């Protein structure tokens, strides 16, 4: 086997390692303007002249003494991966703090390069640095880089190639130091090599301060949230009514129906592929409703959500929101930063559960994961809920989300009370506001939309197939008899709803859409959608929950989930019959 060189990309959180990684390998990874975007590692290959090497994007860490799971990954990788080269990425605007980790890495005596990223920001901030001096003091080359634009990238690849060819020339000679000695050494370097000009605060810096101000901060937060919601929904609706609906009803629907009917005029295959016809949203053919729900209902909202979420992420707003809600989140056993996984959950619960790795404690992870999988409906589900209940009026949508919100709060408070231990205090870096890079933003949005498509499409097809088979094989009748008392007595739903509830295991959006042909009243629809949102996670979320929490905690979450779902559905149903 050919030996493949291994390069580790390391650095503090939020210094742009993932951008450097994407630039060097062409592999798109999600990067944002807050610490902790990368929680697992990504590998990619790159070619440096003749050499093929593997590049690993390591989660950010402030030191080699880890404080959370993501940082632990970083420490382990440096120890166990035995890299041929370490590329230590620094934020040039914050050299002193960044150098601490860099020195710890250099002390390991591995071939290393030092990259000062965000060099343009540093210059705008009036940072003057003696680069040759720094390079001499550290004993390895120091390269300046603007990863988002690619400035300095060519030089970086050239030096990387050199370093892989002549590792001895790039191996630092710095003997291990105590922390105090290391800080003293850094202090000396900074005093000798760096000068910072004083400048007046820019508009963005004033806005940064206002965003965490007790009064203005809350005003800015309210405006931001309301505006974002309106934009997400507005763009979603716009895309549907102007492009996707006409496309489906005028071109795709007739075409696919005719094509399939030509080959299979009738029978089971026709039934499964087309259902009762493209004109009906409720036909439940794989190629009719299946395609319509995913591409014309869900996809536009997914696109719109990730576009605006990406914008907020790249500007750097989310950590500020985290700070503002910190004390409220403490009542739920969480600290402010857990708002980030929760917001991600509104897009898709899968990356949301994965991102809980940036939180410190196991307790906190459990609470957030439980809250997300129970009370945060993903965008796919939301899109269908809007489509389904919107017809009857906003008040029904409000009941669904109001119920979920009450659930979120009360469940959090309950878990905080019954779980032993307490939530850690927040301690995070708040990155400066940055003007987003349009190209990077669009790329990120696209890669997330692509992720959705890859994940959703097979499950949708499989799901429709499975449900059809259950009906054809008569298994559904048996299941119906089994749960019918539960459905009708507790939730007030007809027996037919069983199909949708079963589909809930596979895809929540499709499951919700399956309620449409049942001729439910608006009340019944509201109860059923809420029940679906709270109950069992979709299979993709189930898998990541299992991975992140382990079997024992997952069983706990699911027990809570089923209990709470039944309870919530029953209460909602009862309240309605009383009112």
């Amino acid at each position, binding site marked *: 086997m050919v030996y493949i060189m291994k390069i580790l990309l390391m650095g503090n959180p939020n210094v742009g390692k993932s951008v450097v990684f994407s630039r060097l390998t062409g592999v798109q990874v999600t990067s944002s303007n807050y610490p902790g975007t990368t929680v697992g590692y990504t590998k990619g290959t790159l070619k440096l002249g003749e050499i093929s090497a593997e590049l690993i994007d390591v989660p950010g860490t*402030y*030191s080699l*003494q880890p*404080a959370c799971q993501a940082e632990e990954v970083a420490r382990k990788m440096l120890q166990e991966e035995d890299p041929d080269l370490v590329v230590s990425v620094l934020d040039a*605007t*914050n050299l*002193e*703090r960044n150098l*601490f980790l860099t020195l710890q890495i250099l002390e390991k005596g591995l071939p290393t390069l030092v990259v000062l990223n965000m060099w343009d920001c540093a210059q705008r*901030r009036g940072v003057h640095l003696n680069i040759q001096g720094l390079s001499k003091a550290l004993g390895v080359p120091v390269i300046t880089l603007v990863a988002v634009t690619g400035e300095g990238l060519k030089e970086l690849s050239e030096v990387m190639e050199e370093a892989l060819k002549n590792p001895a020339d790039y191996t630092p000679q710095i003997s291990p130091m105590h*922390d105090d000695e290391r*800080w003293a050494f850094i202090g000396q370097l900074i005093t000798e090599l760096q000068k*910072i000009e004083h400048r007046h605060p820019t508009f963005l810096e004033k806005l*940064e*301060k206002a965003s*965490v*101000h*007790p*009064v203005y*901060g*809350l005003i800015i937060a309210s405006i931001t949230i309301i505006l974002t919601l309106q934009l997400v929904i507005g763009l979603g609706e716009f895309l549907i009514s102007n492009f996707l609906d006409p496309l489906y009803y005028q071109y795709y629907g007739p075409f696919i129906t005719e094509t399939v009917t030509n080959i299979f005029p009738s029978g089971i295959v026709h039934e499964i592929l087309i259902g009762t016809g493209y004109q009906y949203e409720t036909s439940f053919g794989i190629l009719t409703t299946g395609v319509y729900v995913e591409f014309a209902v869900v996809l536009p909202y997914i696109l719109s959500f990730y576009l605006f979420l990406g914008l907020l992420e790249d500007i750097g707003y989310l*950590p500020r929101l*985290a*700070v*503002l809600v*910190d*004390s*409220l989140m403490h009542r739920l056993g969480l*600290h*402010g930063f857990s708002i980030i996984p929760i917001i991600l959950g509104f897009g898709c619960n899968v990356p949301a559960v994965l991102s809980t790795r940036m939180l410190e404690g196991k307790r906190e992870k459990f609470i957030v994961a439980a809250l997300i999988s129970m009370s945060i409906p993903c965008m796919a589900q939301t899109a269908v809920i809007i489509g389904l209940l919107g017809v009857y009026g906003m008040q029904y949508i409000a009941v669904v989300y109001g119920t979920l919100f009450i659930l979120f709060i009360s469940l959090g408070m309950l878990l905080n009370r019954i779980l032993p231990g307490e939530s850690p*205090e*927040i*301690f*995070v*870096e*708040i*990155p*400066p506001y940055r003007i987003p890079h349009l190209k990077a933003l669009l790329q990120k949005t696209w890669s997330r939309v692509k992720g959705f498509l890859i994940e959703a499409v097979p499950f949708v097809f499989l799901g429709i197939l499975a449900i059809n088979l259950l009906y054809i094989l008569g298994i559904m009748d048996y299941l119906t008899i089994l749960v019918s008392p539960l459905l009708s007595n507790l939730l007030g739903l007809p027996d037919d709803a069983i199909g949708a509830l079963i589909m809930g295991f596979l895809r929540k959006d499709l499951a919700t859409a399956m309620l449409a042909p049942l001729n439910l009243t608006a009340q019944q629809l509201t109860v059923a959608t809420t029940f679906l949102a709270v109950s069992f996670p979709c299979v993709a979320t189930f898998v990541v929950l299992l991975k992140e929490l382990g079997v024992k905690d997952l069983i706990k979450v699911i027990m809570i989930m089923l209990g709470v779902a039944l309870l919530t559905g029953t209460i909602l149903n009862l309240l309605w019959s009383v009112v």
Partner: protein
Amino acid sequence: MIMTILNQLENGQKAIIIDINGGRGLIKRLESLNLRKGKEIRKISSAPFQGPIILEVDGCQLALGRGMAAKVTVKPL
């Protein structure tokens, strides 16, 4: 000038960190984000409802919970 704790600083006030009254874990954790003895900091604001303290060290903003902030002794400048 009299020493105080981080929480007590006025918004916009500068101070020097004199001591961190915590275990090794806390000291190391604060240190990794450059909050350590002798550093000059500036308090920016405190979040609503008894939320975290926001401060600036070397042009970089940090948020830390009040419990932690209370363990940081500072000398206002």
